[in-house]
């Protein structure tokens, strides 16, 4: 029985006088260690295995082009100077659509967070419109905003608008009520309370909303460039797909992924700048 086991253990320590043993350590665990080298290693390993599989013929060329082929397509893109044309077109749509969508989203989110009337009137509308896939509305956007840049920017704008609204009003709701009461007790004006207490207090939620909306913007970029786009990374990917030029397709997808990483990194920097006061 357990009783005997305990006795055995007690008898086990070496030497006659060594009745004292160290308390066994059982803490730790569940805690993450920073392992910065792991993620690049995982990336490199996967790409190497992929390349190896393609070279040995284990992965057929038709199923998946080798990373080196995709890289060649990318180099080609740089050499012909098309990369910058595509990037320029895409970045323009992304930046304009995302900026406008975010600005409007923060504004409407603040309205919903601050005014009961706006909350009662707009919140159901937001809830009803948010789940609509904006891609489905693309034909409408083309009719409304034209086949040029308008419809493409509008798709991204609408896609980023709703998650920003929801993140912002959630953030406003979560601002510590005691801080607002403090502001009132010192006689701060309504505008001061909004500007100096509510807005900074909602900032963490707004910035994490930006993380989501920027990814949505990249997803929608490809959709927006489906129709009537000559240049753009999305157009390039779609064109490659239509021609079954899988090496170009992979190159384009890698570009989108890199774009996402860069935007994520930028938002991380913004968080560190704006939220340095957090523990």
């Amino acid at each position: 029985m357990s009783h005997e086991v305990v006795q055995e253990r007690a008898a086990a320590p070496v030497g006659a006088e060594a009745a004292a043993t160290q308390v066994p350590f059982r803490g730790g665990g569940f805690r993450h260690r920073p392992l910065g080298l792991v993620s690049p290693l995982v990336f490199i390993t996967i790409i190497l295995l992929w390349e190896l599989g393609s070279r040995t013929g284990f992965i057929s060329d038709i199923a998946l082009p080798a990373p080196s082929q995709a890289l060649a397509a990318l180099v080609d893109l740089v050499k012909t100077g098309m990369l910058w044309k595509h990037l320029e077109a895409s970045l323009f749509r992304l930046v304009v659509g995302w900026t406008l969508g975010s600005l409007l989203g923060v504004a409407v989110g603040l309205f919903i967070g601050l005014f009961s009337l706006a909350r009662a009137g707009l919140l159901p509308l937001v809830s009803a419109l948010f789940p609509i896939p904006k891609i489905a509305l693309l034909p409408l956007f083309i009719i409304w905003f034209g086949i040029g840049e308008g419809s493409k920017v509008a798709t991204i704008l609408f896609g980023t608008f709703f998650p920003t609204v929801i993140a912002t009003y959630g953030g406003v709701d979560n601002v510590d009520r005691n801080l607002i009461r403090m502001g009132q007790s010192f006689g701060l004006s309504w505008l001061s309370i909004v500007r100096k207490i509510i807005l900074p207090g909602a900032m963490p939620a707004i910035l994490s909303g930006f993380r989501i909306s920027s990814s949505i913007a990249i997803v929608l970029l490809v959709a927006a460039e489906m129709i009537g786009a000559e240049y753009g990374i999305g157009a390039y990917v779609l064109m490659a797909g239509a021609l079954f030029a899988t090496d170009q397709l992979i190159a384009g997808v890698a570009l989108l992924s890199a774009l996402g990483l860069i935007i994520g990194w930028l938002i991380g920097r913004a968080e560190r700048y704006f939220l340095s006061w957090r523990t």
Partner: protein
Amino acid sequence: MKITLDSISHHYGSTEVLNDISFSLSDGEIVCIVGPSGCGKSTLLRFIGGLERPDRGQVLLAGRPPADSLNPLTYIFQDFALLPWRTVEGNVSLVLEDHGIRGDKARAIIDDVLARTKLSDFRTALPRQLSGGMKQRVAIARALSVKPAVMLMDEPLSALDSQTRELLMDDLVDLWTRERFSACYVTHNLAEAVRLGHRIIVLSRRPGRIREIVEIDMPLAERVDRLAELETMQRRIWELMREEARAADMEISDVA
């Protein structure tokens, strides 16, 4: 400036929290309000500062606040209520900005109040870097910067450990000895009440009524050396409250 509470009563839903409370607070006087938990003492303080409105009765101000007072009724909160994204000086300047005090004028006021609360070396620190006692000092500095006529203190030391509490109590006594501010001080800690109060208002359990008003006729500065006398006084108040505190403890809360 004198504050008079005239038969204040209040309900939250169907629960009566305060019943017919009347008392007054004169210049340079510290009135402590004690009572078992849930007797509505914090609510009462919110009425005095105009953050909430009582159902019946009124809070009256007699006389004018000093001309240089920017915010005559100024709170100090239990949870400090500092903006975590502003530094120590930023938190003080927050309450000056709305009065159009900026630049050199603001800097002079901030220097002054930080010196009075022994915070001069911490002006660029963020709240998260400060201990609880330091945070409450910042809140006191912020309150002093608007030159209050009356300080409304809602359990200001309750979130602090007992040693810090002791230190801050000494600081408050020093401050009062120098500035003779008047204050309404809500606490559940009787030791604080007998150390800081000129008068102690003992509230009964819900609905809060005034059970007794205890006058302590001993200069604040002397109290730290006459703790034995205070101890008897404290025990007397505790005897008044004991049964009700027990009953309050056994209660299932239905008020938010």
